[in-house]
């Protein structure tokens, strides 16, 4: 990865042009040809560095609600419970973690009712001892992008009451 790659990747994360011809715009900013920019982006994707180019949405701005749910489930039932949890399309992230609450998942749904329905169903799965619904009360920081030149994160939102 050379200096141009790093610069390109930073702009692509932080200030991707919203324009009918975004790649041409990127090329102009870096003093390159559009074709070269595209080739570099193809390489990023092939290397797995860039997952996609697209939008990150705020669930609330789209009328959705989100929450984090922690589950305490017996070890022998964990795998089955995890599979059931993952099968909900409203579940975006689902991890086993090193705690008595050993299953953690994030949930995004169009309304409170649907979220509670899913959490209740998870609570009824075999081996589940308890669930905790942990919605965000206050947002202090959410990372957006990773600076390739300085190798640091930069944040975009600081402090917002939910």
């Amino acid at each position: 990865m050379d200096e141009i790659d790093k610069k390109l990747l930073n702009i692509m994360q932080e200030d991707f042009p919203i324009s009918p011809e975004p790649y041409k715009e990127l090329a102009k900013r870096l003093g390159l040809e559009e074709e070269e920019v595209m080739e570099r982006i193809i390489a990023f994707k092939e290397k797995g560095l860039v997952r996609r180019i697209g939008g990150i949405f705020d669930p609330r701005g789209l009328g959705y609600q989100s929450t984090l749910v922690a589950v305490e489930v017996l070890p022998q039932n964990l795998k089955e419970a995890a599979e059931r949890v993952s099968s909900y399309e409203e579940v975006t992230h689902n991890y086993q973690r090193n705690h008595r609450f050993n299953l953690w998942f994030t949930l995004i749904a169009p309304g409170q009712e649907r979220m509670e329905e899913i959490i209740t169903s998870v609570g009824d799965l075999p081996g589940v001892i308890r669930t905790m619904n942990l919605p965000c009360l206050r947002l202090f920081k959410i990372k957006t992008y990773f600076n390739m030149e300085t190798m640091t994160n930069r944040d975009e939102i600081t402090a917002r009451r939910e």
Partner: protein
Amino acid sequence: MLSNQDKKIIGFLQEDLPLESRPYKRLAEELGMTEEVLVEKVKELKDRGALRRLGAVVRHYQAGFRFNAMGCWQVEDSLVEEAGRKISSLSQVSHVYERPAFPPHWPYNLFTMIHGKSREECEETAQKISRETGIKNYQLLYSEKEFKKTSMRYF
């Protein structure tokens, strides 16, 4: 609130933007508008806050930040504001949220995602946070298995 047209545009932006000179061309045709108008609508979504960001989604794992820990902190209500802001200033921490505690099972009310090149690096960051905020009671939770990690598909 959101028109069907908005929903189509949002659906499009949830995919991978085509790597073509004019990536919006096809959608603009489908919606019967020019690319310029379509791009204006994308900007509107951003101004409204529905679209947080448009751009490259980078894999942190690939970028060298292999380890992350969910650091959970027990903070007195009156001190959450100060602690939250202090922790937010650290570049190793990507997310800082206040969430409800769940006593007696779960006393922690401040959630942080800590990133590092190793588990030790995450632990060092947590110790630093503890020193600087005076929060003594905390837990670092690591992911032992990833069952699912996707972007939400809206609409």
